């Protein structure tokens, strides 16, 4: 599983770089690289559906973000770091990471999943739903309300974007 560690460390390096680099366009591209590493990690973790969906979603997101960034004139982030905030955030994050040790101790050991619910799903899915893809069976049959709420959320997003890009306000016209 050394590949998985390498991919995760690459993701961490990419995340730090994407947040710290000054050029916004480079930051967007590095985020795309992080998402592709995530897609490869899904493939290693035996989740081909997720790898596929993540790949496509990443491409769409990078296209949208690049289109948003490339039109702007101020493409370089100019920010003075507020040292007080920075130190406070670092201290609280190190506390968070220290406390996460307790959480990790409670999680199931890596490689031996806790399959209390999905064991019944797996043993009955083929005969109850006659579907050979277990992920599709769970997404669209056993836990269909989750999917429904997700679709409603996507629809709400579409409506919100339509409302945002509606007729322009008077403010910007006068400027």
């Amino acid at each position, binding site marked *: 599983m050394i590949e998985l560690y390498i991919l995760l460390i690459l993701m961490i390096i990419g995340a730090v770089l994407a947040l710290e680099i000054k050029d916004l366009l480079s930051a967007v591209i590095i985020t795309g690289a992080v998402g592709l590493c995530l897609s490869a990690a899904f493939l290693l973790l035996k989740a081909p559906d997720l790898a596929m969906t993540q790949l*496509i979603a990443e491409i*769409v997101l990078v296209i949208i973000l690049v289109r948003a960034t490339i039109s702007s*004139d101020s493409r370089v982030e100019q920010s003075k770091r507020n040292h007080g905030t920075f130190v406070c955030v670092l201290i609280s994050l190190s506390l968070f990471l220290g406390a996460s040790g307790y959480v990790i101790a409670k999680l199931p050991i890596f490689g031996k999943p806790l399959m209390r619910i999905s064991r019944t799903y797996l043993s009955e899915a083929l005969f109850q739903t*006659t579907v*050979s893809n277990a992920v599709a069976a769970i997404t669209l049959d056993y836990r269909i309300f989750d999917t429904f709420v997700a679709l409603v959320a996507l629809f709400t997003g579409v409506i919100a974007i339509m409302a*945002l*890009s509606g007729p322009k306000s008077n403010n910007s016209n006068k400027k």
Partner: protein
Amino acid sequence: MKNKPNQQIKSKTGIIDNDQAEQGMSIIVKTVTRLTVGVLFVYGINVALHGHIIPGGGFAGGAIIALSLLNLVLAFGKDAALEKLSQTWAIIFTTLGLLLFMVIGLFGSGNNSILESLFQDKGELLSLLMIGSIPLLNIAVCLQVGAGIFVIFIYLVSLKPEADKS
């Protein structure tokens, strides 16, 4: 100081960006896109329809379909893409997907439960044309996700040139 001349050039040639949104890219890109978009579209439908036997499913298929339409927007410009699938129809497809999802769920409510698979054990195991709710639900999800992402992108594209004008 460096920003100012840049801004002026941008506002003068803001038409370039507009032009790119209207007319699209060079002839090479257009030809390659013309060849590949159909394949991509059919591949998306294929992934969505086979979602119950191989990895894939409605989400990935819908996203691939949206990606092919988005490819069309980027290469040929907004208007050429809107000729293939107009904005009204895209919004109709989005709502239709959600509605279809709900209606299929309501049909399953005969077995004293709502949003559950209908015709439960009448399908043939591991076949493409099985009778059940999951392929139909996959189609509904595919419609909704594909048209939804397309609508989002069309609105985001039409947001941009206005910024250059004002």
